[in-house]
């Protein structure tokens, strides 16, 4: 996303009126761009990461930590450099949902040499330093998935009050003032999602039950019928979109490779979610989940009661199974077709229109399925478009389908090719960890392409894994469906039969393309049964020309991931849980008090800055050889 152009958002009534207009033109725009770009070939590997940060303000006297609502002020400064020198800057800065959040990406994408893996962490460090320079001495830039006391009384600086009876959000807990004020998009989205849904969004996370945990958790249920008494209840988009994530996007050499990688990474999404789990605390409580995923999913769930299947269909067209923020529903590559075992909801007329325009079944149903959603944000300047050239209406729907993976067509008039975005990961505390995770995923894509690996399992099993991945301590304790034999694209004929018929009539033995594995087994391998993703990466690397510094760095990253997967060191979520529950002030009541919150965030800041070592979270070797630039002897190679 480029710098957001400002504009005038339409009211919800106007937006709703134009929903069909956006849909029709969005589809035409996709058809046109597909015709133009389907045969685009020969793009090299380019990729980039996105790290989101929150700005935290510490009151060291009162021992309190708040989110600092200064993102707009800081962004304005950060964007100055880019406006002066758009192609020369080392980092790009964008607003995010929270008035206390910013998002940083590398100024230019990384390229297709292995040596590029060695500049990722340096770039992340640079970004952190660049933004930190603009902070006040009592502020800290933190790559933290969820602010533990978000939505608690006085969680912002300056203080702000929720407005349950007016404004965009109408939350009992989350003030509109905590939404990024610098662009109308964010408040408009909040308002429109609430209005489309017909009521406030509702997020209920099971509370972690400790000795003194009180049920009901609080008196939310008195104010809202949506609140479940034994859950941590949240009622605003900000609880989800106000979380930070770690995402990465890479360019494929053509549309076929993009479809292959979109599919192949899909079964990895829940595994990476479990591995990067980092958000057990919400609204001042310890919950029984480790991840943000369902929180965000519910926080932007714009489905009406009819669409959620609670009332019979009268005004709406479809019953829709998932929120517009959720895991993907179908594979896109021919190998994936037989694993598309979840019926897709879409408008047959749109599907047919795509088919009539020479778009194949898999892509047509994917796009038609995305387009069951209405626009939830429309600007008056963007209503009328040239469908031959513009793609805003397509992007309007595409970019508000926030799924685990995103299949991205080339933007109009650019040198950029077909891309895939990987979106499940939670952001980690340190640049070392974040660099390790993005490098691991991108390395894995190279291994998949080099060895023609196949990770596909039925999409329904990926959905099961997604829910499993968020459970408390899932990385260490849960098992996940994962493909047993990843080396061949040719499944045994009997397994194919099973998938077609539905597995019920078959002996389970014949159907088991997949098995139950722990994250450890998937990442590190299981003697005699499964090679493991890291051994596969290491074998791949032994066939590549890797410079010594880069290989040293990658080894540190892979060892770190191996340790996280094996349980030798904590996931961020487990570590945070431990910190809170072992805090002297913790009263075994599942509550994260102001002081516990302060100590936790102070400790995280110190770990991130390297002032405090934390081997139980990071292991002992976190010193990579990351550097700013690629050696000239290598840069000539690509």
């Amino acid at each position, binding site marked *: 996303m480029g710098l957001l152009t400002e504009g005038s958002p339409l009211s919800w009534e106007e937006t709703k009126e134009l929903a069909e207009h956006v849909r029709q033109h969005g589809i035409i725009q996709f058809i046109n761009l597909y015709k133009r770009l389907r045969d685009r070939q*020969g793009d090299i590997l380019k990729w980039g990461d996105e790290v989101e940060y929150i700005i935290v303000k510490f009151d060291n006297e009162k021992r309190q930590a708040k989110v600092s609502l200064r993102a707009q002020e800081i962004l304005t400064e950060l964007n100055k450099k880019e406006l002066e020198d758009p192609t020369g800057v080392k980092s790009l800065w964008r607003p995010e949902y929270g008035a206390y959040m910013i998002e940083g990406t590398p100024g230019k994408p990384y390229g*297709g040499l292995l040596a590029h893996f060695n500049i990722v962490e340096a770039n992340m460090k640079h970004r952190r330093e660049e933004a930190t320079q603009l902070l006040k001495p009592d502020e800290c830039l933190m790559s933290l998935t969820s602010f533990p006391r978000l939505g608690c009384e006085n969680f912002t600086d300056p203080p702000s009050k929720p407005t349950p009876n007016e404004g965009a959000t109408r939350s009992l807990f989350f003030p509109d003032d905590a939404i990024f004020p610098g662009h109308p998009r964010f408040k408009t989205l909040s308002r429109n999602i609430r209005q489309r849904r017909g009521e406030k969004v509702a997020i209920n996370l099971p509370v972690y039950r400790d000795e003194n945990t009180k049920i009901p958790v609080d008196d939310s249920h008195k104010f809202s019928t949506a609140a479940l008494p034994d859950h941590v209840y949240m009622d605003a988009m900000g609880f989800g979109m106000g979380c930070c994530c770690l995402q990465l996007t890479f360019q494929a050499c053509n549309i076929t490779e993009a479809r292959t990688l979109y599919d192949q990474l899909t079964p990895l999404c829940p595994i990476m979610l479990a591995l990067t789990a980092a958000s057990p605390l919400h609204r001042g409580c310890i919950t029984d989940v480790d991840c943000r995923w369902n929180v965000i999913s519910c926080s932007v769930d714009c489905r009406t009661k009819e669409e959620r299947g609670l009332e019979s269909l009268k005004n709406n067209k479809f019953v829709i199974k998932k929120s517009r923020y959720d895991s993907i529903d179908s594979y896109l590559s021919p190998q994936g077709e037989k694993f598309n075992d979840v019926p897709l909801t879409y408008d047959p007329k749109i599907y047919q229109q795509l088919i009539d325009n020479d778009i194949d079944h898999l892509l047509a149903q994917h796009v038609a399925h995305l387009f069951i959603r209405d626009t939830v944000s429309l600007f008056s300047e963007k209503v009328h478009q040239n469908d031959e050239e513009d793609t805003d209406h397509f992007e309007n729907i595409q970019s508000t389908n926030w799924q685990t993976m995103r299949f991205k067509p080339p933007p109009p008039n650019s040198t950029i090719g077909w891309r895939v975005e990987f979106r499940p990961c939670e952001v980690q505390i340190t640049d070392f960890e974040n660099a390790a995770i993005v490098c691991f995923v991108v390395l894995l894509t190279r291994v998949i392409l080099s060895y023609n690996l196949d990770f596909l399992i039925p999409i329904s099993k990926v959905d099961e894994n997604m829910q499993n991945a968020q459970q408390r301590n899932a990385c260490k304790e849960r098992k996940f469906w994962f493909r047993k034999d990843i080396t061949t694209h040719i499944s045994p004929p009997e397994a194919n039969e099973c998938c077609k018929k539905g597995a019920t009539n078959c002996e389970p033995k014949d159907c088991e393309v997949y098995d139950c594995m722990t994250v450890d087994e998937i990442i590190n391998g299981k003697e005699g049964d499964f090679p493991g993703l890291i051994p596969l990466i290491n074998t791949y690397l032994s066939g590549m020309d890797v*410079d010594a510094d880069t290989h040293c760095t990658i*080894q540190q990253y892979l060892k770190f991931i191996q340790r996280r997967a094996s349980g030798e060191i904590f996931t961020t979520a487990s570590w945070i849980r431990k910190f809170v529950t072992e805090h002297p002030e913790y009263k075994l009541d599942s509550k994260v008090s102001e002081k516990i919150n302060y100590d936790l965030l102070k400790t995280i800041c110190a770990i991130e800055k390297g002032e405090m070592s934390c081997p139980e979270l990071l292991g002992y070797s976190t010193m990579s050889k990351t550097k700013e630039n690629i050696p000239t002897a290598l840069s000539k190679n690509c």
Partner: protein
Amino acid sequence: MDIGSHKKCVINTGNILSLNDITRKSGQNPTEELIEAINITVKEFRSSNLAPTQNSKLIIHRPTDDLKAKIEEQSLADLKIGLKVFLNDDSKVLIQEAVEEGFATLKVPCVQNVILQFKKDKLIETGDDINSLKKIWGVLEEYVKNEKISQIGLADVEEATFRNVYEWATVKPAIIQINLATCCVVPPTLQQFCKDNDVQLLTHSDPSEILPKDAVGDSLGVPLPVKWISRFLVHIICRGVLCSKGYLIGLGEY
């Protein structure tokens, strides 16, 4: 087929990236991988009942090998092809044979780089044998001059040896390959030398003796001596994709 009756013999494993049995055992070291690739190749060759070759050189290969197809999928300009030759004899004929066999197998007129790992057969004296290295290097230089190889390099040599060869050579080494185990502790002087001279400092994970003496004999059932071993790597440039990988093993008396 009577393999023993052939004076000259080459084992060509073909593209081992397509061998599921090898991929499944990821994490093996290169020696284990090479022995497994040889065993699979010999087994597939034996069971294929191919007609005996007419000339005196026998090439043991896999009829199902997809190397040719994998290379033809890409335009040659998008490929970066490299060889690593493992020698323990400095005879000029052997390095020539190894390089030529590489060209013939890959069906290409030239390759991007060739890296030499030379270890004397009997490691009586420690240290590198600079004279032997230079003798082999001279052959590689000719290939560079004839534009058959773009860059040449050395593996597992001491820093002083590398500098010595660098000073002496007409065609300077463009690559030094060090063992992965030492990649985090590269001497600063070597790092600086590489930086100053645009030498690529790369890693490998090969043991000093990549193929134990008896491994080929055990696989073939005939005690043919190993003359040279070469690994080919075919990369798709700028995409980080390994297209093909395999080994050639030159056997026979010399």
